[in-house]
Structures are given as structure tokens and as C-alpha cells.
């Protein structure tokens, strides 16, 4: 950036004509501390395993072989086999696809609903705002797990329905957040400038408010995603999510229940995978928040 450009940018910023998300950022990696770097590596590795899933598992995760059931770890099966002789490591890797995929999908739904409804409420104001936020208030009076259980009861058992249920239970938090951000920004000069330049309200919203809102919501999302992962696997553990043969960490723990006293490792591995993933996601979320938006430090608990 030449000095003239820098001067112009500074000038525009000082006149509040640049949206806050447009400011430059330095590299995350270079500034992050060691726990955050490890967390980023773990999340990256998990994402890779989840994406490659079926191609890199050492065995077929669903192949039943009762002759080798409940084997301890050996060279062929690094973590041993389960009660149906399936390779545990392969099932853990296949489970990563299920667990991370379903959480990512749920998060995408939540963000879409939250930004659309909350953004509309904040930008439109008036009666629209009232209606949307009162509905959100009703959803906030439900404890999340109870609401999720109820939604699964309405929609029926299954992973898709669990994802929808999680989205239904969480959108209101994000809508409230999005509305707050939009309200704080919509009277700023850069919105007026874009409107003066001929943008329609929708264009102004999409071009100038959406990026800023999304940036903050994504931070909230990274902080929340571990929590949501625990919700999804908890529902799976109760048998409401993924059905039996499919590998998913919550289901694997539920499957291992009968053998928990005799073969505790069967239950240990999927739980450890879940625990490490959630912890890595949480640490990454913390680091991102500290970096992008220190004002979000106030707790977000539900």
C-alpha cells in the first residue's frame, strides 16, 4: 500500500466511511500462542480426516467380523476391535466425518437463520422487529436440551432431524446477536454514504452490514461449535440421532455401554476423540475471539 493510499484509508476511516470489517489483519499464526497453534493444528487434522474419511480408513468401518470381536490393540487394528469385530480406529475416523459434518451443517443453518432473521429485525425495525424478537424470546425460554428433545419428538428420530433440532434451539441467540450488531451499525455514516451512492436498503445491508455481522457471529460460532458438538453427540448417545450401524462418536459410546465394565477402552476412545475435538475447537474459538473481537470477552453462556 503506498503512502498516499494509506493516508486516504486513514482519512476515510476517521470519517467513519469504511465499515469496521474492512480494516487489515495480520497473520493469525504468527501472533497466536502455543495452545492456540496446537488447537489450530488439531482442528485442521480433524477437518482433513473428516473430508477424506472413507478413503483413508485402514479398514472398512462397517465390516462385521465376529471372529475377531473385542480384540485388544495389535498391528492390524491399532485400537482394537469392537463387539462386532469392527476396527475401532476406522470407525473413529468415519465418525469424524459424521460428527464434524453434522455440526458444520447445524452451524450453517443456525448462522443463516440467525443473520437473516436478526438482521431483518435490526434493519427493518418497527413491527417486524417486534414480532421476530418476541418469537425469539419464546424460543429462549426453553432450555436447549429440552427444546432439542422436543424437536426430535416432533420430527422423528434421525441425524437430519437432530441437526434441525439443534438449529431450532440455537438460532434465537444468534438472531439476538445479529440484531444488536446491525442496530449498532445501521446509523453509521458508511451506510448513509452507500445509500447516497444509490444502493437500495437490501444492497446496503448485504454489502456493508452483512460482512461485519458475519465476522462477529463467526467468532461466536467458533466459541459455540464445541458446545453444539456435545449436544449432537449427547442426543446420539441417547439413541435419537444416527442409527446403529453408522459410525458416530456418541453412538459408539452408547454401543460400548454393555461392555463398559469388561472392555472400558471401547468407550474410552470415542469419548477421547470427542473431548479432544471439542477442546481444540474451544481453544481455537478463544484465540480467534481474543484476536478479532476483544469486546466479546463477556461470557456467552447457555
Amino acid at each position: 500500500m503506498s503512502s498516499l493510499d494509506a493516508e486516504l484509508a486513514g482519512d476515510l476511516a476517521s470519517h467513519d466511511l469504511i465499515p469496521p470489517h474492512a480494516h487489515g489483519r495480520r497473520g493469525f499464526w504468527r501472533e497466536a500462542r502455543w495452545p492456540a497453534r496446537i488447537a489450530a493444528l488439531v482442528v485442521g487434522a480433524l477437518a482433513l480426516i473428516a473430508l477424506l474419511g472413507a478413503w483413508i480408513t485402514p479398514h472398512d468401518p462397517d465390516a462385521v467380523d465376529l471372529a475377531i470381536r473385542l480384540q485388544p490393540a495389535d498391528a492390524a487394528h491399532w485400537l482394537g476391535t469392537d463387539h462386532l469385530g469392527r476396527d475401532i480406529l476406522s470407525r473413529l475416523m468415519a465418525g469424524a466425518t459424521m460428527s464434524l459434518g453434522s455440526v458444520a451443517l447445524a452451524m450453517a443453518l443456525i448462522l443463516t437463520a440467525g443473520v437473516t432473521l436478526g438482521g431483518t429485525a435490526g434493519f427493518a425495525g418497527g413491527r417486524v422487529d417486534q414480532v421476530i424478537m418476541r418469537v425469539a424470546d419464546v424460543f429462549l425460554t426453553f432450555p436447549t436440551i429440552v427444546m432439542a428433545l422436543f424437536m426430535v419428538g416432533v420430527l422423528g428420530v434421525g441425524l437430519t432431524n437432530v441437526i434441525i433440532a439443534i438449529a431450532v434451539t440455537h438460532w434465537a441467540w444468534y438472531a439476538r446477536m445479529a440484531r444488536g450488531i446491525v442496530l449498532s451499525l445501521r446509523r453509521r455514516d458508511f451506510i448513509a454514504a452507500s445509500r447516497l451512492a444509490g444502493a437500495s436498503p437490501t444492497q446496503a445491508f448485504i454489502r456493508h452490514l452483512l460482512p461485519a455481522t458475519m465476522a462477529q457471529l463467526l467468532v461466536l460460532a467458533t466459541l459455540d461449535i464445541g458446545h453444539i458438538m456435545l449436544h449432537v453427540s449427547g442426543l446420539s448417545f441417547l439413541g435419537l440421532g444416527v442409527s446403529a450401524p453408522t459410525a458416530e462418536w456418541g453412538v459408539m459410546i452408547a454401543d460400548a455401554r454393555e461392555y463398559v465394565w469388561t472392555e472400558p477402552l471401547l468407550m474410552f476412545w470415542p469419548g477421547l476423540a470427542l473431548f479432544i475435538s471439542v477442546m481444540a475447537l474451544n481453544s481455537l474459538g478463544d484465540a480467534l475471539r481474543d484476536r478479532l473481537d476483544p469486546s466479546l470477552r463477556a461470557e456467552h453462556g447457555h
Partner: protein
Amino acid sequence: MSALAAKNRDTEDRNVGARRRRDWTMAGFIVRRLLLLPVMLLAASVVIFLMLRLGPSDPALDYLRLSRVPPTQQALDEARRALGLDLPLITQYADWLWKALRLDFGQSYVTSRPVLPDLLHYLPATLQLAGAALVITLVISAPLGVWAARHRNGLPDQIVRLIAAIGVSMPNFWLGFLLALLFSVHLGWLPAMGRDGWRTLIMPAAAISFMTLSINARLLRASMLEAAGQRHVTWARLRGLSPRAVERSHVLRNALLPVITATGMYVGELIGGALVIESIFGWPGVGRYAVSAIFNRDYPVIQCFTLLMVAIFVICNLIVDIIYAWADPRVRLAAEGAP
């Protein structure tokens, strides 16, 4: 001496007056919140009702399936009429509400028994578990949070930070298994199953409370540090009060306010946790009953269960709000209309 006594009496009188006024405004506040309670429950009941009715499946079909009647067209029509599903939605809701007001929530499709008495039979065990978890949360997180705040960025702070990071990432059902393996199988200290006195309560309650106590320890630390940065705290130190006295009466009291608010959220989290954990420890709570109802799509049970849980959650938050208003003079004064 008499002047001093008169002055004392004077302040006492004023204090009594203030207390009386405070009681009065507190009563107003509580009444207003109590009036809001049925409104919230009504709104929740509308949402529950609409979602169940507008959901993708047909209650009449589920009813026949659970009664093991072949779903012929005639049987379906009869079931619809018997369940009132042929009436307009508004009428159905009004009918349901009228019965619900008289505590009649219908009968289970599976057992044909009235729903509410069955739920109330299982509920106390769940509430006991969630209550014990709340006690553990508050009792353990308080010293942890204070300890971390006292040694900001020191070793204790790092230890509490690590415990909290583990606590918010640990799946509670997995933790339940690990605790049972350690304390029941290996050490043999605690019974692994059932509901028989405090010894059976410890492990499930601990498994549920680990997450909330982690959150609360961090919250208390943060709010203590914020409260300690206030100018009146500096003033109290300058007056020569001991560090412990400053902490007790100037920092901790203010720092507890956010914790009171958060406790309302913990209640929902703990009840949800109890529903999941019950199945591991064979705890005879409402969780297993609800989960089997969800499997079977036993609509009256699902409806009543959800509403009951919302009611408990809302009432707990009402209590929390009242405690908050009582504890925070700013809310009291706002209620009095003072500037």
C-alpha cells in the same frame, strides 16, 4: 451522648422507612414478574402445540401404531375424531388449554395412563439430581474463581483456566462412565447404579456439574477482576481496610451479581444434563420416560414433558431474577423510580 443516641435513632428510623419502601417495591416487582409467568407459559404452550400439530407426522397414525390397530381409513377417521384432530386448530388448542388448566394433559398413547401423574412420579428424582449438581457447581466454583482472581495470571489462575478448559469440553455422559469406572470398579468407593441416598447421588451430580462449575469459576474470576477495578475499591484500600475485608465486602459482593444471573442459565443446562446422565447411573428420573416417549412419538407425553420442563426453567429464572433484584440496589432503586 444523647445527641448521638438521637442521631442513631434517626438513622434507624430512616433505615426502617427505606426497608419498608424496599419491601413494598420488591413486592411490586415480584407481582409483576409473577403476572408475566403465565404469559410466558402460554406462549411456550402455543409454540409446543403448533409445532406438534404442524409437524410432518400424523398423530392419528402414531396413535393407531402404538395401539397396535391396523391403520385402515376407517380406523384413521375414528382415531382423528376421538383425538379431536378433525376440529379446527384453534378449537383443538382451546380444548387442550382448558383441560391443561385443570391439570389434565391427556393420556399416554402407549400406556393409556394419565400423563401428568406419571411424569410427576419421575420428576422429583430428576430435580434432586439437578439440584445436587447446582449445589456442587456453586460450592466448588466459588473458591476456584476467588483463588484464580486473587492470583491473576499466576499459577492458580493457570490451573483454574486448565480445569475450566477441560470442563467445558468434556462430554458429561463420557465423564459419567469414567467416574463410574474409577470410583465403582477400581476403587469400589461408590455404588455405580440406582438411587439410594447421597452415595449414589455424588457421581451423576458431579458428572453433570463439571461443565457449569467450569463456566462459573471463570465467570466469577472475570467479574471479581472487574469489580476490583472500580474506584470505590481503591478508596476502600486507601482507607486502610485489610485486603480480605476489601475483597469480602467491596469486591465479592459486587462480583456475585453476574453469577446470580448465570445461575438461571445453569438450571437449564443441569436439567438437560440430568436427562442424559440418568440412563448411565440407572437414576429413576424423568429422562428415560421422556426418551422412550420421543422414540414412540407419544405426543401427549412429549407435550406435557416439554411444558413441565419449561415451567420449571421459567420458575427457576423467576426466583433468580427476584434474588438479583433483592441483591442489586440499582434494580431496587429503578423499581422505586429513583434517578
